[in-house]
Structure formats: C-alpha cells, structure tokens
C-alpha cells in the first residue's frame, strides 16, 4: 500500500514504478482479521470534481474468508453514492484508489463487508475548496471516449502483490444543476458505470460506479500475481457502450 504520508502529500503521490506492494504482515493468514478501514483523503481537496481517495483493510483474502466489498458514500452530496468495489481473493489485498466528486465535502463513509463477519464501517471528514474559476466543461464534447489502458509491471513473480492501474477516457456528468437553492435534474447522467476485471475467464474484481466518480477516472487496485494469464479490463458506460483492453502476464525469467 502506498505510504500514507506519500499519498496525502500532493494528494496524487508519485509512486515509483513498478510498485510491489508489501506482503501482509507476517502471520496474518490465520491471525485475527481486523475490520478497520484505512481511509486516506487530503485534508483539503483542491478540486471538487476529483477528490482523491484511498481505502484499504488489512485482512486476509483467503477463499473462505475475505473482504467482499468496500462501498463509499458521502450522504450530504447531491449524488451521495460514489462507488462500490467488489474484491475476490485473487486481488490479494482489499485496497482501491479512485477519485470522486463532492459538492462541498463532508463525512465520507465506507462500508466494508467481510464474508465471515458481515458489515463494518468507518468515516472520515474531507473539506473541499473551490478555486473559484473552474467552469463547467462543454457538455457536447464527446470526442474523447474510450482508450482504456492497463498498467502493470512487465514481469512478475507468482505471488507478488502488485498494483494495477487502469484508466478510461470518459466524461462524467451528474446531469444536476443548482437552481433556486437546490439541485435539479437538467440532463440525464452520463458516466462510466462499471469496471470489470477478469483473469482469463474468471471475474476477479468489479467496480460499480456512479456519476459521482470523476471524469477520466484512474483506478488502482491490487492483484496477487499469477504465474501467467491474461488480465482483461472492461468498462461500460451509462448508455451501455463498452470498451475493453487486455494485458498478458508473462512468467518472470528465472
């Protein structure tokens, strides 16, 4: 996991690539599972359309006992639900980074679900400031859509915990406008609503998103490196259009 200080400083920390995530603390697989959610947010987010968030739970990800999902919301926002990330043991770690919109900040709530122990929650405050001259983009601009990308270290040792980064070019409109003191719907939503991650034929992760996920999202999650296989990421938007990209995982040279 990215060091907390690195993540907070600058809010989009520069990690060195390739990132090999540290293995879970020794003896954890069998040790008592914690249900403590680490939520990393900047003290003061400078861009209300792209508040960076890192959430993780130190917890086994074994077939019989793993974190099934982390669900993020901010109740006081016009679009309170931000996204829900579903994990499988193939992730190796319950960890995800993404960016969301917030009107004025508030209490971010993350609900985790453990396959054995059920739900648990954590909250964290975030303040959002508006620079004052950000303006709404041209809503008719639909030129850049698609171009999905995956970034992965080129060769991996089986069992390494690695960071996968994915990105797709896509606008994100809530369709809401602030009129007469409240938010009213002016246009339909337009956003990427789902990301699916497959390792060969197995679905290993799913990210259910809302129009409160930032435009052009950059999503980072963990993968326990297999010996070989093909990683496939598929994005679907609110109109049902889909984009896919794949990355072949090669065995490391011995």
């Amino acid at each position: 996991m990215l060091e907390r200080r690195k993540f907070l400083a600058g809010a989009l920390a520069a990690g060195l690539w390739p990132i090999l995530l540290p293995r879970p603390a020794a003896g954890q697989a069998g040790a008592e599972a914690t249900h403590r959610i680490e939520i990393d947010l900047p003290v003061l987010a400078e861009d209300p359309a792209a508040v960076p968030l890192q959430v993780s739970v130190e917890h086994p990800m074994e077939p019989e006992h793993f974190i099934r999902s982390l669900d993020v919301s901010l109740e006081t926002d016009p679009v309170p639900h931000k996204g829900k990330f579903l994990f499988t043991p193939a992730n190796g770690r319950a960890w995800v980074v993404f960016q969301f919109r917030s009107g004025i900040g508030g209490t971010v709530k993350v609900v985790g679900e453990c396959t054995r122990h059920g739900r648990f929650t954590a909250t964290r405050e975030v303040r959002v400031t508006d620079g004052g001259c950000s303006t709404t983009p041209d809503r008719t601009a639909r030129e850049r859509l698609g171009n999905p990308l995956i970034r992965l270290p080129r060769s991996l040792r089986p069992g390494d915990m690695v960071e996968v980064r994915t990105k797709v070019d896509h606008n994100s409109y809530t369709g809401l406008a602030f009129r007469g003191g409240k938010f009213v719907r002016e246009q339909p939503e337009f956003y990427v609503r789902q990301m699916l991650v497959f390792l060969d034929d197995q679905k290993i992760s799913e990210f259910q998103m809302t129009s409160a996920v930032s435009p052009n999202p950059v999503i980072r999650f963990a993968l326990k490196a297999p010996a070989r296989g093909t990683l496939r990421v598929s994005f679907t938007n609110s109109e049902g259009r889909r984009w896919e990209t794949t990355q072949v995982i090669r065995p490391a040279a011995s």
Partner: protein
Amino acid sequence: MMTLSRREFLRASGTGAGLGLLATAGITACAAPMKGDIMPKMGRRVVVIGGGWGGATAAKYVRLADPSIEVILLEPNKEFVSCPFSNLVLSGLMSIDSMTFGYDGLRRHGVKVLHEMATAIEPDARRVRVGEGYLQYDRLIVSPGVDFLWEQVDGLSAARDSVLHAWKAGPQTVQLAGQLHAMADGGVFVLTVPPVAYRCPPGPYERVCQVAWYLKTNKPRAKILVLDANKNIVSKTGLFQAAWKAYPNIEYRPASRVEKIDSRAREVTTEIGDKVKYDVINLIPPQRAGTIAVQADLVGADKRWCEVNHLTYESVKHKGIHVIGDSTTGLPVPKSGNIANAMGKICAVAVVHLLNGKEVPPMAPGNTCYSWVSDREAIAVVNAYKIENGKVVQIEQKLTPGASAAVAQNSIGWRTSIWNDILG
C-alpha cells in the same frame, strides 16, 4: 496621481536617485553580511516579505493608508517581472522588457525596499531574520508566492537546470521562448499541467494557445502535446475548448499526471505508463506556498497552503502575521494576480486599522482574469465576492461569451492599470 511610464521605471530603477524626492535613505545591500538589528525600529513598522503582486501592493497601500507607519519590503529580485502576459513572450508577441519594472515607484511612497531574502520568521520575538541579521516588526505581511514540489516528479530535482517551468516570469521565460523558437519544424513541444491547486489556473492553457498559435504560424508541422494531471481543463473550460478548435496541432491528454522525467532520453512517463518523447519540455511542477511560509509553520496540516482570516488575512496559526496571495487557501478565490493585488490592498487597510486600534472594515476581493487565445483575441472570467458571516463568499462568476479583440483590448487597459496600482 503618479502615472506609471515604463520608460520612467527602467530609467529610474537603474540609478535609484532621479525622481526619488520622497525616497528615504537608500538601503543598499551591503557587501558584508548584516548582523544584529539591521534597522532599529523607531515607531510603528510593517514588514512585508515578497515584492510581487500581493506584497508590493500591500507595502504601497500601508503607506497610502497611514504614512506615519514605516514599511520595509523584502524582495530579493531587483526588478518586478509580470507573470500575467509573460505567455506572450513565448509566442514572440511581447518582449520581457515590456513587462519588467523597477521598485522606485514604491520608494516614492516611502516604502523602504530591501533587495534581500527573508530567511526565517520568529513570531514570538516579532522579527524577521535576514541573513545573519534581523528586522523587528509590529505587523508582518507575508506574500511569498509559490515554490515547487520537485520531488513529486521522479528525476526532476536533478534536471532542474534544463527542464524549465517558466512559472515565475523572468529568465526562464526568455529561455523557454528561445527553446521553442529554436525547435525544429516537425518537433514536439510537451507541456505538463500540475494537479490543482497551482498558481494561475488558466495560465497553462493560455500558454498552450500561445505556443500553438506560434507553431501554427511558424512551424506548421510541429505539435504541442499537453499532459494534464487534472481531469479536464481547469479554468474557462468551454472557452478554451472552443479556442483550441483553431489549433489542430494541440493534442490534449487529461488525467495524465507526469510521474517521471528522463531528461537525457528526453522522455516523460505518465501515471498510467504512457511514455512521451519531447523535443522541448515545459514541465510545470506541483506547487505549494513559498518556502518561508513552510519554514515559519504558516501552512496547514497539508503543509502546502496557509489558512487565513477572511477579513484581515491574519494567519490562523500565528497572530500578528498576515498572509496574502497565492500562498493562501480556504477562500473560494483563484490564485490569480488580480486576487493577490486585491488581498494586498484589503490586508494593508486592515493592518493599518488594527495598528490604530480601529475596527477593520469588511471588504472582499474581486477577480478579473484574461487569457489570450491567439495573437489578437482574449477570453475572460470575472468573479465578484462578498463577506457573509465573516467569510468570503462568491456573489457571481461571469465569462465572456467568446474570444474577441475587444476583450483583448480590455486586458491591455487592465494591465496598464494594475501594474500602476501595484508599483506606481
């Protein structure tokens, strides 16, 4: 009213004498380092750190509001070079000289301008360290602008001499213009935009317009590639998008923060792994408040920007110290020159009222911000603010309907006037 004439500035700044009837005894940088109390304080004194859009304005306006208060301005640079309009030096439309001024206008108001760097602040002792010496103050105004977070881009610290930001107008602006003009036709100019918040939100996009216009006119086979760490154009979004339609040589990639630079291979790498080769690079690094603000612990928990009282600009962390300009945070205002100038005036008046034991009149800044999208047309955004429950709150934001020569003309009027307001 003293009209600012550029010729007068350049002439006067060289000699320091000339028309300085009101100039106090010139404090020139001594050859030997100053120790102890550099200038013993006689009466009430305000020290201002930083002689830019905020600090120079504040220094002048303290003198205007109450000439019985001594004002000392610490600014290492002997000349003021305007960042606004410096993008037109890149396209060759203006010279750097035409936006370079001396500080004699301030001296005529009785400001004591010291071309020295403030090295530390001692809030308890109410003094500013300058090298081995110090200056006492009754109130301190800190306007240190921005400094760069070099370590956030791998390989950047080591390459600082050759990888230019030109985000503080002056020699780097001229150097970058030279690199652009010398670039081969068919070359690639890469410009990187840091994640918000940074100095001058529309600045990088105006620069893109000026470079694109220059290339379209002079090097038709060259292109400009923009790697933006942000999700979309940060300011005047629709207007820039419309303006860029005239420049097919622009390729814009949002959500593409630059993570690494290899200046020998002339290549940058983005967070998503894209490797981009460049002929000329303009890497604008992520930013934070000027170093003195960090050293003096005026910054907040994020260690980047300073939170202040919205009426007086007094630091929420240290009493008696006021912070203005790009270094501040928490007000819903952009980091613009116009805002720094407005904060300088409001803070100056507030400080004078505080020193005279009077109630501070509530006043909010206003923002006017022009961007030149070609050699003759500009766009603008204007924000008006009010004070509500002790906080600065926006009343309205207005954009020009499109780009026009009339708006460009207005911007010329604006620069004449505001440069005079700061330094005249």
